[in-house]
């Protein structure tokens, strides 16, 4: 570890990509990493998508600007393994087996559940997806992007699908739900951001719970986040190291920092941003988890559904043919 730190310090910099400062507490994680090791973090294209990250690895390959580390959705991770260098962090054993590549090409980092974030002062208490069809939700319900493009939006439709009695293998009922939502005039097609929530332009947002809770900061106590009990849909992102990383030691040190279970380590920092770190179960039994942050998460009761790659692809294929038709 000491050798890794020395090598990383000699490189002096780390290139990261597509890490929005308000996403899963990345603003503070980057700041703390720099403070701890004195390594400059160059954060490129913070609002980029997972696909943008992989594209940048290819297009900037061999330059000193190429991304060192990636934080990508599973759909992108699984088809891009030829770009990754295997690495196993020192807390490797605490990552559940289903959530990592056996060779260490990718390893899930944090995740959460699909949730409904809403202004409780305006709408009272929301407990289920079907409530959103009510007349008080005129122009209110927004997704986080276009489901044929953004993973969070696809999962938002999938959550509605589960709530409407659909299965993970067919997203048709979710699309039908949004068709109904559009017909009654409750669908709001504007991109939900912190600003649109603040101004009340998107008073109900279907998004990952950690993104919905992050936007709650500064909203006062009226912004509530609920994971519907009949539609618990989980999703995790994954870390990977670029095999041609310009700063290979800093890249590995970054991973060690992210998977550190210390009170000031990455796992607890993610948790403080509302995301559930992948080593949470192990940390809870070891007592290293930040209890206050853990209790602040929206409660989840029931068995969560995780999409398999085939189910995610099936949903995307169905959406590409039917989404625009259903909601326009």
């Amino acid at each position, binding site marked *: 570890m000491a050798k890794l730190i020395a090598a990383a310090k000699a490189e002096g910099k780390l290139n990261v990509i597509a890490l929005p400062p308000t996403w899963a507490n990345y603003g503070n994680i980057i700041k703390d990493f720099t403070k701890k090791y004195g390594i400059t973090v160059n954060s490129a294209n913070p609002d980029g*998508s*997972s*696909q*943008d990250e992989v594209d940048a690895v290819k297009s900037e390959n061999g330059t000193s600007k190429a991304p060192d580390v990636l934080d*990508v*959705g599973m*759909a*992108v991770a699984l*088809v891009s393994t030829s770009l990754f260098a295997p690495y196993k962090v020192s807390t490797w054993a605490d990552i559940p087996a289903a959530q990592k590549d056996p060779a260490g090409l990718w390893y899930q980092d944090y995740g959460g559940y699909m949730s409904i974030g809403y202004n409780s002062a305006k709408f009272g208490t929301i407990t289920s997806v079907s409530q959103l069809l009510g007349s008080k939700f*005129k*122009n209110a319900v*927004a*997704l986080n*992007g*276009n*489901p*044929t*493009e*953004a*993973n969070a*939006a*696809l999962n938002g439709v999938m959550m509605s699908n589960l709530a409407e009695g659909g299965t993970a293998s067919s997203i048709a009922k979710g699309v039908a739900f949004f068709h109904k939502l559009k017909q009654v*005039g409750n669908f*709001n*097609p*504007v*991109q939900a951001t912190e600003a649109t929530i603040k*101004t*009340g*332009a998107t008073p109900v947002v279907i998004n990952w719970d950690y993104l919905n809770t992050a936007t709650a900061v500064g909203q006062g106590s009226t912004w509530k986040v609920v994971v519907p009990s009949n539609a618990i849909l989980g999703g995790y992102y994954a870390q990977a190291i670029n095999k041609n990383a310009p700063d290979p030691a800093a890249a590995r040190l970054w991973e060690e920092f992210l998977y550190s279970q210390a009170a000031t380590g990455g796992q607890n920092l993610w948790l403080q941003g509302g995301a559930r770190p992948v080593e949470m179960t192990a940390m809870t039994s070891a007592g290293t988890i930040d209890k206050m942050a853990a209790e602040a998460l929206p409660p989840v009761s029931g068995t969560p559904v995780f999409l398999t790659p085939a189910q*995610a*692809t099936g*949903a*995307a*294929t169905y*959406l*590409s*043919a039917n*989404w*625009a*038709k259903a*909601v*326009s």
Partner: protein
Amino acid sequence: MAAVAATNTTGARPERAGRRPPLAWLGTVPFLGYVGVFLLLPTAIVIWNSVRNTTGGFAFANLKVLGNSAVRTYFVGSVELSALSAVIGAVLGAILAYAIAAGNPDGIVRRISLAGSGVLAQFGGVTLAFAFFAALGPTSGFLLHASWYYDFPGGITLIYAYFQIPLMVLVFLPAVDGLKVQWREASESLGGSAWHYWRYVGGPLLAPAFIGATLLLFANALSAYATIQAWENQIAYTVPQQIYIAINSEVGLSNVNYADVLALGMVVLVAIIMTGYALLQRRAARWLR
């Protein structure tokens, strides 16, 4: 754009034309270079990539997606939005241009309208969409629960009209200014009514400029992307929005070659429009000789 305002003089060449210095073509190099790098090369790349697959082999079957019903809706959406906003912009802009031309040529109204049009014609993208959103959107208080704001193409056409009308004023005013008062007087002294004047003199004279300007507005709307994307981004109504998805999709639908096929469709669409414009222009130009 130049074609709109230009009055094509096809007079005889000056006599010295034959003894032009042999290096005169050098002057066109920057222009040809520019056109080559920024127009011909990208077009060639689009065509080349649209018939290849992700592994680099040829795949002419790619082009079949243009017949796909989902893809057709993107093109229909693009054409619908562009045509509607171009016609609204052209008609209202032409009326405004005529009103401006009828006023005092050195007056303050004309100067303000022209300066204003110059600024507003360039106002677009996220800022414009946000301005409308704040003023008319569902939360503005003005039109609370105004779901029509998100109707396609109604709501977005309203936003596009905001820059289409002033653009029409800018490109159409020179043509209206070209109408001489004497022509109207001649028509009247021969007993012509206002209808006769517009039917046989003013209309035919302005028609090429009007149609040309409308096509310019159409192309302007066709290629617009940032404004509609800021207006809403959860549904792809137009081809540029779908090209974005084809490039950026993180749910496994990204396919650069598919994006190139869509872009090729846009190129063909513009080529058809420009050919139609050239034919019209050739026919209309007879009036101007």
